[in-house]
């Protein structure tokens, strides 16, 4: 079995994996990082989004072996070490960007990648970035609002809708 070494949330890990082991299985079952969710397992819903070398990817559609040597960040890794929440997570809470919370880890990881590339996105740019993240509860409006707020922009115009 191939051996993989990667840095997950700043910590180096080394494991044997099967060729077919998906990155999401490696994270959840191998490392116990169950914050990354599996919704569809068919690369549609985005619940499994993590960052690989800083880029958002669907971890249900990437082999663990492909991430050999990479830096991987999961939802556990964006949370401050002293507990609490990072600004994107806090904004989701403040603006009711979640209901059941199943899609939230993927939403937060996609939003974080967006804000790294585009620190002041428009509401339309936020919606475009969320194209591959499905939420069955919120209707998206408050997710867009939360991400807009996390980027430091005024959300009062959106709030009126």
């Amino acid at each position, binding site marked *: 079995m191939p051996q993989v070494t990667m840095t997950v949330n700043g910590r180096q890990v080394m494991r044997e994996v099967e060729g077919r082991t998906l990155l999401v299985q490696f994270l959840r079952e191998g490392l116990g990082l169950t914050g990354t969710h599996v919704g569809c397992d068919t*690369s549609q819903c985005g619940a499994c989004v993590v960052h690989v070398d800083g880029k958002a990817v*669907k971890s249900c559609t*990437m*082999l663990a072996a492909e991430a050999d040597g990479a830096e991987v960040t999961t939802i556990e890794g964006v949370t401050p070490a002293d507990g609490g929440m990072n600004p994107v997570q806090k904004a989701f809470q403040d603006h009711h960007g979640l209901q059941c919370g199943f899609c939230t880890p993927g939403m937060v990881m996609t939003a974080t990648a967006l804000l790294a590339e585009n620190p002041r996105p428009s509401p339309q740019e936020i919606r475009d970035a969320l194209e591959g993240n499905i939420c069955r509860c919120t209707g998206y409006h408050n997710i867009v609002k939360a991400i807009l707020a996390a980027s430091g922009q005024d959300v009062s115009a959106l709030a009126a809708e």
Partner: protein
Amino acid sequence: MYNFDFVKPTTLQDAIAALSRDEAMPLAGGQTLIPSMKQRLAAPSVLVSLTGIPELKGVCRADDGAVCIGAATTHAEIARETAAIYPAIAALAGGIGDPAVRNRGTIGGSLANNDPSACWPAGVLGSGATIVTNTRQIAADDFFQGMFTTALEPGEIITEIRFPVPEAAAYAKFEQPASRFALTGAFVAKFADGVRVAITGASEGGVFRWREAEEALGASFSPEAVDGLSVSADGMIGDLHGTPEYRANLVRVMTRRAVARAQ
């Protein structure tokens, strides 16, 4: 998904050697192949990753002005790196799927797969690009041979795609809203010696050139030039998203929009 041996060569030569093994397949972004393997539609015994080979990645400019894109370059990289040199291709790449799909999926994987609703076949055929493999160069007109079928031989790897840069070009896609693939998409490119129009998502034969529109647009490159034309619904795809007649109409509508965008 059945298990397989995973290999990740760092040179093209090693990749070709690995692909000569029994039931070996190349793996690029995996955005099509991994879902197919989960459904057991594909069950290779060896997967040869193309993502660790530097010579298959990146965008450059050839001496004759052509834009050359390594086969294992992701849609996201292409969107970024061709924005200034071939904006119509950058826009096509930036409109594929969603950000996570664009961060993994590659142009070579999309072309080898030749999904009848994919975007790249339209951009490549519409540009009259050349597909370079480890053994030869294939003109776009000869490469696409029907739904999910291409001129590639077993074990042959696409290494690069060379796009001549037109005077004006644009891609217009009518999205199937759940998958983001093209319900119908038109890529229009105006060169000094004529216009090319490639249509994806519509025909059961996969991507095709719409010759009548090419002629009409060659005479007058304006959206109105295609108004009088019509396309037969024979051989168009009919599914729960749209009838053959609906797609035949979209061929004209999307071509018109692409021309308007290219003005």
